[in-house]
């Protein structure tokens, strides 16, 4: 946390290396979050690029340096939602057997990815942020701009739906 704070300060003081290090630290988690939300690898990469560009431009507005994680995911959330709004009705499910670990059966991976894409956006987001990104409920509440109780309900409903889909 302290290192992250230092990197933010360095970036604000014009040290480009500071921001580059933040990008290196966060690009994979943010990319994975966007990919799970959007379901398309190339598109997720372009959006990930946009997220860091916005973060760089708006870094000065981050008042509480210790809330960088939630702040960055909030930018990713806004980016994903503005993209998802354009694609209402469409479903992206990429079936690329070359990506990811070989140890997990491809059938299971495809089934889970498809099931995730069938959830409503707000429920999928909570499942992704909790299961894959290991964020706290309070952080997810900031990202979704919703009460913690709502976030918890969304996770429960998401799990119920996934259980129904995956059997």
């Amino acid at each position: 946390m302290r290192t992250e704070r230092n990197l933010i300060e360095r970036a604000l003081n014009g040290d480009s290396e500071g921001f580059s290090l933040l990008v290196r630290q966060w690009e994979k988690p943010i990319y994975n979050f966007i990919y799970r939300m959007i379901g398309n690898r190339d598109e997720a990469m372009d959006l990930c690029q946009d997220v860091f560009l916005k973060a760089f431009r708006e870094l000065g507005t981050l008042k509480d340096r210790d809330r960088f994680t939630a702040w960055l995911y909030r930018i990713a959330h806004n980016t994903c939602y503005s993209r998802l709004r354009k694609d209402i009705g469409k479903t992206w499910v990429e079936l690329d057997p070359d990506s990811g670990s070989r140890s997990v059966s491809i059938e299971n991976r495809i089934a889970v990815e498809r099931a995730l894409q069938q959830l409503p956006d707000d429920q999928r987001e909570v499942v992704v942020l909790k299961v894959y990104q290991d964020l706290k409920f309070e952080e997810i509440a900031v990202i979704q701009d919703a009460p913690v109780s709502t976030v918890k309900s969304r996770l429960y409903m998401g799990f119920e739906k996934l259980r129904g889909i995956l059997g």
Partner: protein
Amino acid sequence: MSHLGERITDYLLDEMTELEKAEADVHLQQCLECARQVESFKGLYFRLQALPSVEPPRRVVVETTKKVSRPPLWWWLSPAVSAVAASILTVMFLTPSARPATMPAPQQWLTAELDKRDSENGKEIQRLRGELALLESRQLAAKRETFDTARSLQLLAQRIPGKGE
């Protein structure tokens, strides 16, 4: 205690206090319905977690030659002061100026077109930089591997009698 309901995810993710968890444990020993749901959610959770994370197809590159813009001073001030500042600015902008407020239509179109192209070119440059960064990191890894192989061969050659002399 009533059924766990939505608190099942709290139980599963270890988000309960000691007391809540103890109460839930007692309930689960008596309630087959909740116990089944916990087991089912647990299985689902592990199945979800088995999904591997994905490597980004290229590196993110952000053009950092421009300094990060710090917010204007009013952004840090209280809402009241900000409101006053905003009012002053509004009055200033509403005051008629000697310069025409709008550009001629062709100039507007040209500016918009140039902005659009700048944005498109910028994105393409960022994408290519990302690919270049990835290729550079792969090249570096290949160089290291070559160096390690050469070093191993050298050591091996030294161990073979008559070769290391």
